[in-house]
């Protein structure tokens, strides 16, 4: 993906770089306690390769980027609010650091972590 050309050349940002930003931002976001594998098969692959961007999918079209996040949320929080917050924060961080436009952030809640049952 090249978001901009400057007079002396082009800038290319890989899927992986954007996925890293997304995953770091997600983990800083309140209520998110982990990223999850999209499915069991890729879980095995990730276990073998130690992919640092597990739980994030990045898609490009010509002018913008879409993100899919697979998340574990803390039990006892309002999931809707947590999901809203994380998608806003991820969008903001990617747009701020890369200059790309984020078209979509889709949040998939893959599970809840139960620390306390009240």
């Amino acid at each position, binding site marked *: 993906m090249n978001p901009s050309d400057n007079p002396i050349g082009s800038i290319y940002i890989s899927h992986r770089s954007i996925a890293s930003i997304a995953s770091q931002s997600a983990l800083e976001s309140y209520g998110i306690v982990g990223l999850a594998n999209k499915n069991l098969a890729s879980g095995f692959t990730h276990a073998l390769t130690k992919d640092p961007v597990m739980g994030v999918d990045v898609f490009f079209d010509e002018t913008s980027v879409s993100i899919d996040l697979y998340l574990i949320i*803390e039990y006892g929080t309002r999931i809707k609010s947590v999901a809203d917050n994380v998608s806003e924060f991820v969008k903001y961080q990617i747009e701020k650091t890369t200059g790309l436009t984020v078209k979509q952030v889709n949040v998939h809640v893959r599970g809840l972590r139960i620390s306390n049952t*009240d």
Partner: protein
Amino acid sequence: MINQKTHMEQTLTSQSSSYNTINGQDLKKLVEAALRWLKANQQLVNSLNVFPVPDGDTGTNMLLTMQAAYNEIANSEETNIGKVAKDVAQGALMGARGNSGVILSQIWRGFARVLDNLPEMDAQILSRALSESRNTAYKGVVRPVEGTILTVIKDVSLAVENCVTKSSDLAEILDVAVKTADESVKYTPELLPILKTAGVVDSGGKGLFFLFEGMQRLIQKLPLDEGTIVIKDLSSIKFAETMDVVEDGQDVEVVIDFTPNDKLDLEAFYNDLGKIGTSIQVGEGDGLYRMHIHTEESKQDEPEALIKSMGQISKIYKEDLRDQMKRIEAKKKELDIKQIAPGSIAVVSVSPGPGLSQIFVSQGAAAIVTGGQTMNPSIEEILKSFEDLPTDKVIILPNNKNVILAANSAKALSVKNVAVIPTRNISQGISAILRWNPDGDFDQIVEDMNDSLDEADCGEITTATRSVEINGVEVEEGKIIGLLNGKLVVSGNSVLETCLDLLEKTDMEMRERVTLFYGSNITEEEVSKISEKIAEKYPDHEVEVHNGGQPHYQLIISIE
């Protein structure tokens, strides 16, 4: 145990303000005080934003969360503090908005867990409860960011843990909590660089501070409804009111946030500004000042130059007033919605066209959401339309069967007292709004409106988009069809013919008035012809015609 209920009244009325235990009713009063004080300082908290993300309005988010929490206990007579705390936590969870709201709900959740079913709380329990608040709040995130509300609750809980070894007086402990929160908030820019860059303290932390301070102010019998520091709400000084006083030549609005180097001499400052422009307003909060002025185009840089000489500028907004005026004029032409009186009953109506919107507004609708057949409004749009209205009594008229669900979802998301009247079409909506009375009894009006649903039939005339046979009516694509209360009943070659056939299908004997709302795809002449024919055929009935401006439907007919 008998005088449990009056613990706080005793301390509140007696000279000494010390007490060793509090019960559920005391906690209720404290939560209410915290809520009121946060409300009074909401704008100040909002003004501390650094992230330009929609989570932005931290003060509002925390307030909505606290409001939802308090609503759970507002009518509670419960004296068991554990049960009250549990309800508060539940309310906060359900109403949590934004990051800070979610964290606040976790703080309450941890707090309530320790109080679990205890009749009273003493200093030791308070200390344990706050520690659990801290632990629960920190558990919700993988990488806690310091210099936020998390840091503030941590500092407060540690200070209280330390304090209870020396004192068992809850008022004294609260004083320590407020003092610690204040210091902790002031230190946040040292922990979080982005705050330092923006020249603010953390907004969520500040909100939490106000919650503690509100409780302290209740005990000290200080007023709770007026913020000590007033920053004018920018959105409120930007539009309508100031627009009326724009003088000729004052073309640019300038708003500057700044921190003065020395103590600001307000009088001299106003004098200097007076030479530059008009509509001067200055707000102050925590050493941060906000200046608002209208100036001539040629002088638009002067306020900046003036303020630069006296302090550090953190933000400048400039806006062309002529543009603003034009936009406001255009909006006014569109719809003339009257501001409702605070606390009165507001009606929100979904409307498919400008003419129909105007009709709803003329009957007193406080907000209009555009939508209807083939363009259903989102839950968000419905919610937004009434969240800012200065009342918590809201009635929604969906006016379309496909919108009722969204309206109900908006109701579930709002902390306000919302009723959805399941109006399935425009004529039911209009019959319903006629029962509206801004100062009436909310439940009574809702009941009246629900009763009104059976009192009107709704006819719709439109063009068939495909060939089909339904209810024994055969329709060819391109023909005119008539629907009665949502069911296809007639089809024909012209609007007139179909309209008259449609009326035959209704119980005209029982009805006395026919109102036609014509759409954007039919001319006024055609409609007046139709209304004449109807009047001829039904001489005992009143016939009215309005421009509804709706798309797709040539006519929407209300038969009452």
